[in-house]
């Protein structure tokens, strides 16, 4: 029942349009139920003061059972924030996008979580293995199995790119 995903996304979109986004987050586009863009900005004092980034959500037919593929947009002159858990290709190593995803989370909840992830950053730097990862990274960040280092503070120590077979299996089961 792909319509479950569509109905839920429609509902979330309606909520955003009626109630508005949380502070610092704005909907850029949501033309369909597959690709949404938001701008995200950290309010108050932080490393990223005054910087606006764009978040991209990609949904498959299994949403919300299956987590959305979330990343920063790095095209059209947009940049990914420099952050220990954000790769320069926009991929984000955050446990709520992987192991700790729950259907109770919504698009705005994800946005707010990532916003606070940026806000709590002490030092602007890329992940240690940025270059190596970006060279081999798949297009869809969900195909990367990140290893999270701690519960609330996801850190990327190591990751493994799933093989084609592995990702196919995951896609079927998710």
């Amino acid at each position, binding site marked *: 029942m792909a319509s479950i995903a569509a109905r839920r996304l429609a509902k*979330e979109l309606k909520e955003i349009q009626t109630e508005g986004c949380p502070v610092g987050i704005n909907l850029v586009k949501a033309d369909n139920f597959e690709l949404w863009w938001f701008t995200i900005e950290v309010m108050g004092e932080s490393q990223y003061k005054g910087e606006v980034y764009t978040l991209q959500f990609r949904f498959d037919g299994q949403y919300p*059972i299956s987590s959305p593929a979330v990343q920063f947009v790095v095209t059209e002159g947009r940049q990914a924030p420099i952050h220990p858990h954000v790769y320069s290709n926009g991929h984000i190593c955050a446990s709520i996008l992987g192991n700790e995803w729950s259907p109770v989370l919504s698009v705005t909840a994800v946005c707010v979580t990532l916003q606070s992830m940026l806000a709590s950053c002490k030092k602007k730097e890329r992940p240690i293995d940025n270059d190596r990862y970006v060279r081999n990274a798949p297009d869809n960040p969900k195909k990367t199995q990140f290893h999270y280092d701690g519960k609330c503070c996801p850190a990327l120590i190591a990751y493994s790119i799933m093989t084609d077979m592995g990702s196919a299996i*995951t896609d079927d089961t998710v």
Partner: protein
Amino acid sequence: MMSTARVPTVNDLRVKLCYICREEEPYDAIREGPPRAWTHPCNCTLIVHEACLLDWIQSAQGGSAERAQNALKCPQCGTSYEMESRKPLVLDVLSTINKVLQRAGGVFTLISAAGVIGVMGSGVYITLTAYGAWAVRQFVGKEMFDMLLTDDPSNWPWTAFLNLPLLPLSLISSRLSTSPTLFPMLLPIVLVWPPSPVAHQWMHHEPWHKRDRPHSPRLRGWPPSPVIFGMFIAPVVKMIYRKLLHRVALHIFGANLSDAGRSSRFGLYLREGPLFIRFRANVDARPLADDEAIAAAMNGHLDANDNDDPDADANPDPAPAPVANAPANDRPQDPNAANLMAAERLIEKSASSLGRRIGGALLIPYISNMMGTLLFRISKHSHILREFLGIKQHRRLLNGLPPSVYAYPSVSASTGAVGGAAVGDGLKKLGQLLKYTVGNLWGGTKAWAELDPVWWRNTIGLGLFVVAKDCLYLAHLWLTKREIESRKIKTKDFSGVDIKELDLVPSFPILSPRPRRTSGAEIASRAFRQVDTSDGRRD
């Protein structure tokens, strides 16, 4: 309406909102289609369609263990969901088996890797052990072998499983570490014995040749016990033989043979270290030394500055260099000795392949057996030889008794029924403690005395073989040395050379002033251009 008459359930909510699909269902809504079951699985306010939750759990269980764990509790209050399902014991068992098998699979991978190594290792081990048993059998003869070990490994004492595989190794190592040409190992095969079950047997019955004289009327302590022979007699004999051989060689050649240690390249190189050094040295360093030694021998004398051995010094590999240097530094000053050394090297050069040494070492038991058999055949015609070899088979054959039948009754007769039974046991299971405890009581030393001492004639045979081989070697050496000493380069006249190119003595009668072949003159002129006198003439 705060009465607690009834605790509200999910069905009492005015609007139900599924936290997964976010569908709402007012209590008074007119249902379309089949009703969907709602559930409140935790302790907070979240409620959910049962189907949605099951979907989510099922999907999460397909993922990582952590995800599956997360799906089984409320994302808000963290309460674990209680799931009821038809989970008969069989399913539990099957799942458990599956998990166990999964884990076992990993273990299996490890085990199979270890197994491959183990199989290869045990193959080597079995081969070595089989060789060891074969060697012992060759050396002590079938009769004694059947008594000590038998063909069935299940009768073997545990020490046999240590000693037998070590036997080929010790044979090979002895071959690699002592002079190959002068003293093939008579000893190792005997020396390997003492720790072996064979030797234990002997240890305990060492005095048999002193004690049981009345029982073996013909033998009286001859031949000596293998232990005494191996420990005391053989080394002495070997030492005497070695000195004798050197003396004979000195007599023949007028110079000493080179030391066993130095002439054995493998001994030296094994001590040098890693394998490649040996091979390298074999290929490179040694021929240099050989050629030089031969060259020196041909010169008949040595230049003092030649001792530096520039070839060896130029060798970039540091390890073989000292080895290559060695012959140069202690090269004998005596031309005769130099010739001898050159001859030794010539022979050794073509006699030092690894396969030859190892093969030769492994053939020792067979050779000694052959030689022993040969001696046995000859002994039929010589009473003295028969006595010396302590051959008893003739007598036994005369008595018409097979050896085992003959030996055992005498055992039980002398030790009594109990002792005899125990000995019978001990005989079957050599190496057991029992054997040692009754060992002293065992009059069965007679059995030993009655057994044909095949090992003795084999040892003697091997000794003779060694002597014959060394004689052959000395002969080879002598011929080679004579060949080196008799070397001359054949000289030719200048036919074919333009006579004008030669600076001849004035008294040389010039018969034909005309050059006969210009091409020959050309070559000759090029060849002689370097000679000063020739140049002078051309000017």
